[in-house]
């Protein structure tokens, strides 16, 4: 290899990688703020769907299922909502909703269940007596065609109205428990027993104690 070759190779690599890096950085700088905002909006919308009757959903803490960060929320209903107009430091007028006479009507918890090939990310809402109202799957990487049936309505609807002791997967027909998806028992178990049940148990241990203390 001659000296000219070495210079050529160096220039080649530097030029192409710098151009490539700049293009990617440019696209990233344009997309990432929008993406962040959209994800935030989607999260809010998802919480709203979990508990449509709540006027206010507030994050109250974090727990660590499978070493992951997961939040839990309290849903409140207000006896009255006042809208105040406030001015911030810059003098812009902003409307702030004020909740008067809040009453806790339930909880929402983010849970993770260890599935067949991924961690399944779930949102569960329960009422004041810790009976499941609704669950939804936020993300997963289960086998397409088998494990991904956990996203289907017929599976998710089984959870409505189940209390913690009935969150058990059964193979075959069942009325009061959760029926496993054919060919995806591990994924069904992950959602039901590792994900939702642990989330609800956490909520019970967390919030029942508070009631006793108070």
């Amino acid at each position, binding site marked *: 290899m001659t000296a000219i070759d070495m210079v050529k190779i160096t220039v080649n690599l530097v030029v192409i990688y710098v151009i490539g890096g700049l293009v*990617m950085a440019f696209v990233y700088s344009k997309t990432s703020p929008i993406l962040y905002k959209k994800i935030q909006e989607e999260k809010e919308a998802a919480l709203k769907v979990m508990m449509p009757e709540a006027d206010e959903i507030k994050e109250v803490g974090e727990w660590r299922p499978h070493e992951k960060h997961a939040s839990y929320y309290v849903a409140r209903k207000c006896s009255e909502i006042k809208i105040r107009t406030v001015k911030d430091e810059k003098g812009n007028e902003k409307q702030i909703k004020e909740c008067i006479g809040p009453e806790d009507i339930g909880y929402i918890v983010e849970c993770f269940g260890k599935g067949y090939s991924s961690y399944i990310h779930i949102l569960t809402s329960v009422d004041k007596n810790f009976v499941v109202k609704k669950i939804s799957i936020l993300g997963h990487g289960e086998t397409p065609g088998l494990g991904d049936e956990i996203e289907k309505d017929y599976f998710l609807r089984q959870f409505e109205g189940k209390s913690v002791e009935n969150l058990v997967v059964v193979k075959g027909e069942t009325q009061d428990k959760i029926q496993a998806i*054919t060919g995806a028992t591990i994924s069904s178990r992950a959602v039901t027993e590792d994900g939702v049940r642990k989330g609800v148990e956490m909520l019970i241990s967390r919030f029942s104690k508070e009631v006793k203390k108070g």
Partner: protein
Amino acid sequence: MIKPKSNREIFLNGIFGENTIFRMAISLCPAIAVTNALKNGVALGVSVVFVQTMVNLTVSAIRKFIHPKIRIPIFMLIIAGYVTIIDMVMATYARAVYKEIGLYIQIIVAFASIFARAEVFASKNRVVPAFMDGLGMGIGFLFAMIVISFFRELLGKGELWGFSIAGGKPLLIMILPAGGFLTVGILMAFFNWIDIRFFGGKGASGAA
């Protein structure tokens, strides 16, 4: 071996003569991993058409500038760059689609077929033939994905594009990896038979 071909021949070569899956038997990993539903197969196929065409165009346009000794890392950057950009743009502006196929976009980086075309064809040819080759190869791949996933979803789930057709799951094994190998093998044999019987070719052994 190298004789000048018309752009049309180059385009058709990618679809039939050197079809990535059925003739060259490369990039079989995604062909089996993703094709258990028609929708997934089509989504990955379309993404590959785009990446393959753009990579071929870029490699061909800068082929004289690339030093032969370091062509591999440069191809890698071009492929990874396009995939990353598509990934970021889709994640932001097409979130509904991205949720379905986001997982598969990223694995395009490791596609043997895209790399192979950059190396074998685009780095030695002008921009227009390279573009036609990329388009042909990409559409050939898309075609293979559609055929494979059509049979697998229909037989394995009794559905097509998510709509129930057979009502039940006739052959569950078809959506498992084993069914993928079976489908690809049988289809490969079928296309070889067509080639030998009707076109006087030598099957897959005559390609390349």
